[in-house]
């Protein structure tokens, strides 16, 4: 069972899904960091992007990677609109309120998808996704390769954007010290709107990358959301690098966990870790503290 080629294969699928998690969690952690909001509808934006990708292909024959041109502006736009319309009015309330609003959004989007597309599992299969590349022992399909490389590149690009660009600096300033940022003449509200949009746009990128290698159904968001939470806490809430590394760690350990644990017990491990981190190390694995 544990031949080297098998282990490497596990590592590859763990790394691929881990890079996808990392990109999702990057969006979640930006929203959390700048706004102190637990964004419970995060998974539904992913679901939305995946359905757009799927139908753009099955109805109009659009290449899934080309549909990034649709999904990114749509998720960004919806995110910004939702921020101004629904999040802004409750942003200064107790933490449960913004979270409940996003839970409401998630209920609406999920059931809308259920109503429009039924609970059927859909899968987008194009011949070129399964083109195989061999590097010695290692076999990887083109779909997986693009998902891994794409997610990793975008995550790193996003990190660079936050670190080096002027807009990124203003976003980080709003996240680190709201009042200080206001005093420096930064429009914090606008930074929050942009971050919210960027956070949801991360899913606009994740969707088309994930569609060729994963099934789609209306509740797929829940599955990814819970993991994204675990990763964000593991990496330290609002800690961007933490989210990237956490995504990879969870991706790999999850693939190993499902092989070692019976039934559907594997998520218990991540939830227990999650509670443990919340209690004993809420600043995350990678904090310098």
């Amino acid at each position, binding site marked *: 069972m544990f031949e080297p080629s098998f282990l490497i294969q596990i590592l590859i699928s763990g790394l691929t899904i881990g890079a996808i998690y990392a990109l999702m969690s990057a969006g979640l952690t930006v929203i*959390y960091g700048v706004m*102190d909001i*637990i964004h419970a509808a995060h998974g539904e934006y992913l679901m939305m992007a995946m359905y757009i990708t799927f139908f753009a292909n099955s109805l109009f024959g659009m290449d899934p990677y080309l549909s990034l041109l649709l999904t990114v502006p749509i998720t960004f736009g919806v995110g910004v609109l939702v921020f101004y319309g*629904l999040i802004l*009015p*409750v942003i200064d*309330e*107790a*933490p*449960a*309120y913004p*979270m*409940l*609003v996003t*839970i*409401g*959004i*998630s*209920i*609406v989007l*999920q*059931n*809308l998808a*259920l*109503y*429009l597309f*039924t*609970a059927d599992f859909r899968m987008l299969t194009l011949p070129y996704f399964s083109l195989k590349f061999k590097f010695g022992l290692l076999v990887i399909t083109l779909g997986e390769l693009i998902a891994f490389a794409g997610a990793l590149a975008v995550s790193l690009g996003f990190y660079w954007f936050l670190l080096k660009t002027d807009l990124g600096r203003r976003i980080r300033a709003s996240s680190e010290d709201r009042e200080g940022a206001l005093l420096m003449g930064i429009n914090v509200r606008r930074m929050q709107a942009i971050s919210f949009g960027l956070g949801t746009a991360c899913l606009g990128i994740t969707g088309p990358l994930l569609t060729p290698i994963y099934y789609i159904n209306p509740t797929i968001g829940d599955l990814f959301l*819970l993991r994204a*939470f675990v990763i964000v*806490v593991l990496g330290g*809430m609002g800690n961007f690098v933490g989210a990237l590394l956490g995504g990879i760690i969870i991706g790999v350990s999850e693939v190993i966990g499902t092989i070692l644990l*019976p*039934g*559907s*017990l594997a*998520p*218990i491990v991540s*939830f*227990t870790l*999650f*509670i443990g981190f*919340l*209690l*004993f190390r*809420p600043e995350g694995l990678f904090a310098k503290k």
Partner: protein
Amino acid sequence: MKTLISHKTILFAFLIVIFLLLPKVITSTFYIHTLIMIFYFGYLASCWNLMAGYAGQASLGHSLFVGTGAYTSSFLLMEAGLSPWIGMWIGAFFSLILGLFMGYLTFRYRLKGHYFLLATIAFAEIMKILILNIRTLGGGSGIAIVLKGDPFWQFMFTQKASYYYVIFIMVIGILLLTHFLLQRRAGYYLVAIRENEELAKASGIYVLKYKLIAISLSAILTSLGGTFYAQYICFIDPHSTLGLGVSVDILIPAIVGGIGTLFGPIVGAFVIIPIAEIARSYLGGGTGGIHLIIYGLFLIIVIVFMRTGLVGLLSRLNILKGKV
């Protein structure tokens, strides 16, 4: 002041009589069912309010206690033939243990705000995954409660009105309990902790102890509600008793009606549950989730536009004079 209180008492007694007579007047099972659901969620929201509204610890994992109560009494009934009237207290005991465990860890390490919300979700999710994987508890297919012996002994009634009376008495119970708790020292301590924990601690209040009292009471009472649900619906599964959706449903009436007010959760249930039930009965049948879309939209509207709660709104309008 004295007359004001007696006015309130008279009004309260009058309402009790009205609600006791309602099933005699209303014959439609749909309306009785809606009333039962109103009181059921009003009851659970009041239990939640005891911990969130007065002790200031908003949990999003109260389904943990609903599920523990429902599963304990149902399992004991179906496997050992133990009456749910007794089983509900065993379930309440398990919930108490779980509540103390969750409470001790989270309060001891001072989880606040988001961290507390997330931790409570995780506790409930762990229980849900565990039960999904335990075959003797029915796994994902749940437990069906079927009649095996004497109906009353088995907490099963042919008339919906009987369930109505049971849940109504439970509601009266939680209201009286909350009312009297607030007049005692413990109640003042809890409010003090909610308002300013550091200050409460500095004035010599044993914060951890009173928070644990709040979560214990809340867990026990919520658990009893779980048994009621199992006996009324006659079917439980991990999703309908332990899911995050259940925890959300529990706190909505409290938010609509007003957190930290005595009657808020019940008033909130009267506003939101009829909408949910009517949407479910007219739009629910098919495969799609139109009624849930409406429910979700309503949830958003309520939180964004009615966040101070109806009772808060009413008292601001000075309709209810004095303290609510």
